[in-house]
């Protein structure tokens, strides 16, 4: 049992790729070892921006011996009656490169069978080629070449350490030959190189040379400093910084007091995005400190590094101050006018046009939600203005947030400014009516615009975020219990657009798929079958989400009720027969007895909506007996046709509640 180390060293790899590389290497190694039948305890992959190391713990010294049983043709085919090999039998042995065979029984038949053995091999003999194939197959998120055409890899590869215990296992990759020599931290310590004497000492030796090669170790150092100071931090930023360092050392900086008057979101964005520092957000408040995670700190240079970083941040925040002052000297109305010059989408006019489409939509949604209509329309009118503000042009992630701040400054109501602030939240704020009206208007317009313009999401292709927008709309309508049908919703969107009507049905069914997802995940019915029964019914586009949710959860609650099974069987029988109907159902053409028997159902069909399964009782009371006593396919074609039409009408009524065909799998299958 030995440890194998394979360290790949390179020029600085982008931090964002490293976690993915680590995960991929680990799974490639496990697959390769399994294929080679080499046992191991664990594959550990660690690394920094400058190296990725695989440590295979508890590796067997040799691969396992593998025996295969190969079954050939049946005895009568493999052997002659004289018990000699036939050409087929000989062919089997030749094909598998074996000479020995036995005859074995399987059940009542006998076959020619051969056993082959892949012999065990010393791990050290095969490891080099396994390692080469593992690293050669790494998928490259970005690829480059260097020098005289070396590559491709993410960045130039500089060295490889390959050791099984203390024994060098030669590996060659992209023109680099492995050895036992690693590079230490680029700037810390006095050595540039170090020899790894044994794979088991790898982590320690690097640590002695200022490389903490374990991501978890570096993460702890940074997180401890953040936690100790009760700082709320962005997890994505933490992960990035973990891989931007080999020897992280926290240094605290302070924001100049004149910059603390700038809008906090802009300061935070500037500190995080541009400089990768952690702003000290404590209990939701931005304080005047920030945490720099530097990579080359010594007692001698700490003050210099701190001063340098401070002056960089100062310059950045000076820029922010410049934009802030410029923007405040501008007017929102002026920005809104400029939106006419910005193309929204080729073929769909300007952002200004989009705003003009959003305003009536916001009004309509406001009426549905019960939001203030004037505020909602005003919010829509201003909502995109910050797009042309200097701050948002410089820091695009602040779109919406800055709009809210500027709206408030220019005297808009708090409902209006708050709606703009939250416009791009991933979940629509349903607790604030104006917010919801605005966000619904924006996203509905995005969805129908993209459909009309042919930008319909396929597979992973969804550059405009149409899926996300559609999902947010349907989820908000559902949570707000707005009794609106998806047909009315989508149609309202297309009304404003004035083009692309031919895509309307496609768009409705796209929305319906979001509804399905929401019902399944949003506490309506975790069971897919009742949800499908409701969502897939032909009538669903004309039912409100409220009705559909109600039906689905009702079905879910009754899924094991024996009466549901009876109803389902009845309805399916009715609808399958009714499918071949072509004429109109005329009750007066039934004979008196039949008419009397069916009367409760005829009444029921003319009655009001179906709300629960209890409303189907009349059907289960009447129809089984009716089928028992009546030959639907009567030889008299008029009678037959009238009966079939009756069944079709019953079936249509039932579909107003659900598609019962979809339910039957949940009930153990319906009778035909």
């Amino acid at each position, binding site marked *: 049992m030995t440890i194998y180390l394979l360290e790949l060293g390179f020029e600085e790899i982008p931090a964002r790729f490293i976690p993915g590389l680590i995960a991929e290497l680990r799974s490639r190694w496990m697959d390769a070892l399994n294929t080679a039948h080499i046992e191991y305890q664990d594959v550990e992959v660690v690394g920094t921006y400058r190296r990725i190391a695989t440590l295979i713990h508890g590796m067997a010294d040799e691969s396992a011996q593998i025996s295969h049983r190969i079954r050939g043709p049946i005895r009568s085919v493999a052997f002659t009656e004289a018990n000699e090999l036939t050409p087929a039998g000989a062919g089997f042995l030749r094909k598998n490169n074996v000479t020995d065979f036995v005859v074995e029984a399987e059940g009542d038949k006998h076959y020619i069978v051969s056993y082959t053995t892949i012999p065990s091999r010393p791990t050290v003999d095969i490891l080099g080629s396994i390692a080469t194939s593992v690293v050669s197959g790494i998928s490259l998120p970005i690829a*480059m070449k*260097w020098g005289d055409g070396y590559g491709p890899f993410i960045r130039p590869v500089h060295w490889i350490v390959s050791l099984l215990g203390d024994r060098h296992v030669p590996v060659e990759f992209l023109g680099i030959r492995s050895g036992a020599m690693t590079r230490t931290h680029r*700037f810390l310590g006095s050595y540039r190189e170090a020899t790894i004497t044994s794979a088991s000492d790898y982590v320690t030796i690097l640590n002695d040379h200022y490389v903490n090669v374990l991501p978890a170790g570096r993460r702890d150092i940074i997180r401890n400093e953040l936690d100790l100071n009760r700082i709320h931090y962005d997890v994505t930023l933490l992960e990035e910084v973990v891989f931007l360092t080999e020897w992280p050392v926290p240094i605290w900086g302070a924001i100049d007091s004149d910059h603390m008057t700038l809008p906090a979101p802009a300061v935070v964005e500037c500190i995080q995005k541009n400089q990768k520092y952690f702003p000290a957000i404590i209990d939701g408040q931005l304080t005047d400190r920030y945490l720099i995670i530097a990579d080359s700190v010594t007692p001698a240079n700490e003050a210099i590094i701190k001063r340098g970083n401070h002056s960089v*941040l100062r310059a950045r925040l000076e820029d922010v101050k410049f934009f802030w002052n410029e923007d405040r000297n501008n007017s929102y109305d002026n920005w809104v006018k400029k939106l006419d010059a910005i193309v929204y989408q080729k073929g769909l006019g300007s952002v200004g046009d989009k705003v003009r489409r959003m305003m009536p939509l916001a009004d309509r949604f406001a009426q549905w939600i019960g939001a203030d209509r004037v505020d909602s329309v005003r919010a829509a009118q201003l909502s995109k203005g910050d797009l042309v503000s200097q701050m948002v042009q410089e820091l695009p992630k602040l779109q919406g947030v800055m709009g809210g701040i500027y709206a408030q400054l220019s005297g808009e109501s708090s409902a209006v400014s708050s709606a703009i602030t939250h416009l791009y939240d991933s979940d629509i704020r349903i607790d604030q009516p104006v917010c919801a009206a605005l966000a619904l208007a924006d996203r509905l317009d995005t969805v129908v615009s993209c459909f009309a313009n042919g930008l319909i999401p396929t597979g992973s292709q969804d550059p405009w975020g149409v899926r996300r927008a559609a999902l947010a709309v349907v989820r908000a309508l559902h949570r707000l219990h707005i009794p609106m049908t998806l047909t009315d919703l989508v149609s309202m969107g297309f009304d404003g657009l004035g083009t692309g009507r031919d895509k309307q049905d496609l768009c409705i069914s796209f929305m319906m798929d979001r509804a399905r997802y929401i019902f399944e995940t949003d506490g309506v019915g975790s069971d897919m079958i009742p949800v499908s029964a409701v969502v897939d019914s032909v009538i669903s586009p004309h039912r409100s989400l409220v009705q559909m949710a109600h039906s689905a959860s009702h079905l879910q609650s009754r899924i094991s009720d024996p009466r549901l099974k009876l109803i389902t069987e009845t309805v399916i029988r009715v609808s399958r027969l009714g499918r071949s109907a072509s004429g109109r159902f005329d009750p007066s053409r039934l004979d008196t007895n039949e008419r009397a028997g069916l009367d409760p159902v005829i009444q029921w069909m003319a009655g009001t909506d179906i709300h629960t399964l209890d409303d189907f009782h009349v059907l289960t009371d009447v129809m089984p007996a009716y089928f028992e006593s009546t030959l639907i396919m009567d030889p008299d074609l008029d009678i037959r046709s009238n009966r079939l039409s009756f069944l079709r009408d019953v079936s249509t009524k039932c579909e107003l509640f659900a598609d019962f065909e979809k339910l039957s799998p949940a009930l153990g299958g319906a009778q035909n």
Partner: protein
Amino acid sequence: MTRSFQDIILTLQTYWSDRGCVVLQPYDTEKGAGTMSPHTFLRVLGTTPWNVAYVEPSRRPTDGRYADNPNRLQHYFQFQVVLKPSPFDIQDLYIGSLESLGISRQDHDIRFVEDNWESPTLGAWGVGWEVWLDGMEVTQFTYFQQCGGLDLNPISVEVTYGLERLAMFIQNKTSVYDIIWKESRNGLVTYGDIYRQSEVDYCHYNFTHASVDRLVTQFELAEAECNELIAHKLVSPAYDFCLKCSHTFNLLDARGAISVTERMAYILRIRKLAKKCAEAYLAHPVEV
């Protein structure tokens, strides 16, 4: 004694000259970056090795701030180094150049942070880093992969120092205008003494007074000239007119005279010229 702006240039020139680079002079046509000099754009094409260093004045009209902003300029200087093929120890060579400027690796936090580069107008892209010196971006590092829409082999590496940033760092200045250009016989001459007024004047020109109609005409004239010169296989003058198109486009952009859709169309027109120049150069590359 503080290292002056011109000392920084002289030091870098000496450093790279000692490492086998041809030290050239700035190219005399307006351009947005040192990459656009034919000493980079054309020479990275083909297989002939090429090692060069030069200062390049760069113009980015939209970046002007009427000299109000201490960090942004519409005219500034780059120190450009191009090594073809890229040497294996280029990062160490670069760090050595910082040390020649008195920036010791022991005293600072130097980082190579991902920054991939693409120039749609040149049909060029590469991968690399921006170099952070205690958090300040002082250099762009790019391994060119494509230029003029053509795959490159061997690969060139381009190291572009932002001279003003570097000088502010070395001289510990918070405004670009306070950079000491030279302690001359008549006393201190600052960057601001030399460039502040022209910076303001150019901003007025770029943002307000540049004639849109005449710029549009200039663009078309330069484009026509470029095409005609390519037909005569006169690569160098043709490329000058491609650069003129690019700068004219930047001016139109600063004037706010280009809509989003027009923008793309202009970029494509310039890229077409750049590609033709690259192809024409490759048909008759200069041997060194």
